[in-house]
């Protein structure tokens, strides 16, 4: 993973906007497994995109 990505604190819950949460749920992505690239490790739509392209 890139050094620019802030790590989530140990044991912390994933941070994401409700819209990202919904999309993750619809795509079947477990947010726990996604690295967030936003402020404070927040998961963004781009992170979901990255996740998707990794999977496919």
């Amino acid at each position, binding site marked *: 993973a890139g050094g620019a990505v802030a790590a989530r604190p140990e044991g912390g819950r994933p941070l994401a906007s*409700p*819209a990202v949460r919904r999309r993750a749920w619809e795509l079947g992505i477990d947010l726990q497994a996604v690295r967030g690239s936003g402020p404070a490790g927040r998961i963004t739509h781009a992170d979901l995109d990255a996740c998707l392209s990794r999977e496919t």
Partner: protein
Amino acid sequence: MATRKEQGAMAPMTMIQALRSAMDIMLGRDDDLVIFGQDVGYFGGVFRCTEGLQAKHGRHRVFDTPISEGGIVGAAVGMCAYGLRPVVEIQFADYFYPATDQIVSEAARLRYRTAGEFIAPLTIRMPCGGGIYGGQTHSQSPEALFIHVSGLRTVMPSNPYDAKGLLIASIENDDPVIFLEPKRLYNGPFDGHHDQPVVPWSKHPLGKVPTGYYTVPLESASVFRPGSDLTVLTYGTMVYVSEVAARESGVDAEIIDLRSLWPLDIDTILASVKKTGRCVILHEATLTGGFGGELTALVQEHCFYHLEAPIERIAGWDTPYPHAHEWAYFPSPARVARAFRKVMDE
């Protein structure tokens, strides 16, 4: 709502003229309509909204009252029990407080506590809002205090066309209506740029008003400016402030003018936020405990999974309205534009 013929020709009107026209027409249509308040009779109101109505309709229909807001509303409730339909004026919204008991415990509750045996179809007009160097007691926006009271309707127009149509609808409505008039809009669509010349209503499309009878239905919001970036929920003067903020920030804001604050048009709100995924709520009243809290709660409840960014509230600061610092207090176009950009950047 009204036939072409009833509506009559269009004419340029200020918001004051539009309100007056609404009352004039309703005095003509409904014999049970009476209008009263401090200085509203002979003089025609300190803002001139009732000018000429006493001369035209008579001293029994339009009259002055003692300086007792509690008496004005209390007497109006009694008149409702008789069968009249009073339209009363509180000279400034800041002065409704002595009438609180009559508004909350009486007008708002009468239908409920009598299971409809007695009703209180009165309309309480109050100029509200700041931007006129009126200081603490000529500037307040107390809408949140009414919205928390079940049984009341609260309405606030933002332009002459709506003002007239909503006032007629409020008068015809059988529930008690708090009709708040943003006094800074009486003479033109003020956008918060207080250092720029005032634009009169005659230069604005919404300053063209049918001279006859028509209504703007209650519980209907208007999409004042369509947009796709974010949704602005606002009303009154702040409609124009958010419009200029959209222009100046370059954010394509969809501005919803709520018009009826409560009960409100929830569908228009939810459809917009679901479309844009972002929401800014804007009012001049103080932030804490203001109507913005309720709107935030409704939006997050119904559109939670559509939200891309926290809902942002912009409001008057949590202080009394400070005379000299009016323009630091009043939510400025710049502050609103900043909020737009912040919400877009999240």
